[in-house]
């Protein structure tokens, strides 16, 4: 331990070699930070913030597109719903039309059928009546002839009798 070292003031006296090394080191670290370290990190910070901004932008765009698509689909859906209800109404109306048509046609056909049936019954009835009249007349004439003999040879009496008989039958029938 030197006596000089006991004096704390020695600590504050710079040595040439200390200055040289301090200056060299300062220049080296300053160059490193100025030229490499900070530009590198700044580049990374910038890239990151631009990426984040780009991401936010993209997300906004996607959101907008999604909103648009949703609105479009909702519009389409509501149109489709309206259309569907219209179609249903139309179908219902048509169905009732068809039913009514069918009913009226059926009614008409039925009445036609019943009319023609009525007519054919009537005509058959008429035919039967005419036929019956002829047959009954012949039969009755034959029968009466057999019973009464010559007494009924006269044609006038014969037809009068037959008419009377038929009228009686008709009255009975009614």
């Amino acid at each position, binding site marked *: *331990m030197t006596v000089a*070292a*006991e*004096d*704390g003031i*020695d*600590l*504050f*006296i*710079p*040595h*040439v*070699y*200390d*200055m*040289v*090394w*301090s*200056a060299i*080191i*300062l220049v*080296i*670290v*300053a160059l*490193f*930070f*100025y030229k*490499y*370290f*900070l530009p*590198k*990190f700044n580049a*990374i*910070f910038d*890239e*990151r913030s631009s*990426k984040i901004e780009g991401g936010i932008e993209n997300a906004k765009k996607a959101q907008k597109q999604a909103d648009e698509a949703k609105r479009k689909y909702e519009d389409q859906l509501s149109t489709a719903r309206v259309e569907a209800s219209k179609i249903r109404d139309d179908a219902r109306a048509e169905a009732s039309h068809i039913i009514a048509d069918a009913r009226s046609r059926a009614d008409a056909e039925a009445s036609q059928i019943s009319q023609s049936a009525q007519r054919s019954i009537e005509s058959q009835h008429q035919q039967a009546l005419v036929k019956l009249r002829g047959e009954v007349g012949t039969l009755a004439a034959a029968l009466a002839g057999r019973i009464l003999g010559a007494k009924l040879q006269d044609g006038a009496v014969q037809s009068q009798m037959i008419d009377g008989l038929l009228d009686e039958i008709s009255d009975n029938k009614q």
Partner: protein
Amino acid sequence: MVGVAGIHMLIAAQGGPDLPTVDDFLPPEILFQGTPFAINRIILVRIVATVAMLLILGVSAHRAKLIPGRWQGVLEMGVSFVRDNIVYEVMGALRGRRYVPMIATIFFTILVFNLCGIVPGANIAATASVVMPLVFALWTMVQYWIAAVREKGLGRFIRDEVFTPGVPWPVYILLAPIQILELLVIRPLSLTIRLFANMISGHLMVATCLAFAQYWMIESADKLMGIPVGATWFVGGLLMTCFEAFVAFLQAYVFAILSTVYINLSYPEQ
């Protein structure tokens, strides 16, 4: 310091603990003795610390990715701390952009150099010789003079600083010399001495605690008393080491923020 050395002398005479002295900061030259490139212990620590810092930070920056890992996250925290919490906070982003690399250099280098004080093997801060803090302080001074000349012009800067407006003229007799001294001497020297003295006292405190721990626990003949006393000193050394880590950061921060403030003072008021 003289007092500590005195006690050392006293105890050393009795074969006491190997207490640290001022000599720790005036180590002998071990390489290139006598030349301007002589290297002593502190300078060796400084060179090793510089190489280690450049390697670690350089490799980290080279490997830096857009999506940071844990280590890169720590580094980015440091970089954005210097940028946002020191430079931009004091002088704003517009003015501060050009000074971010300078303040980052000062902050990171001083932090690493200070931390050497508690790195085993180094055990002395690389800033614990007066020249290293002085060089940083002179850099700051050069920068605030350049900023002053560029932003205000030399004449207006000196007029504003030395003859502070709004002061009655007789006060200038007292104020003007103080202001000149402030600009040329006090600012750089206060930066230098604050950092340097903190590193010296930190080393002395840690080393004293550990020297007493060593002495009481191992060298003392009276083990009954020596072990608890030594253990207490050791705990003290542990706490001081943690405190030194904090001081290492704090002094780097103080140096960086004061440099920023001094440079900002050279800009015209807005």
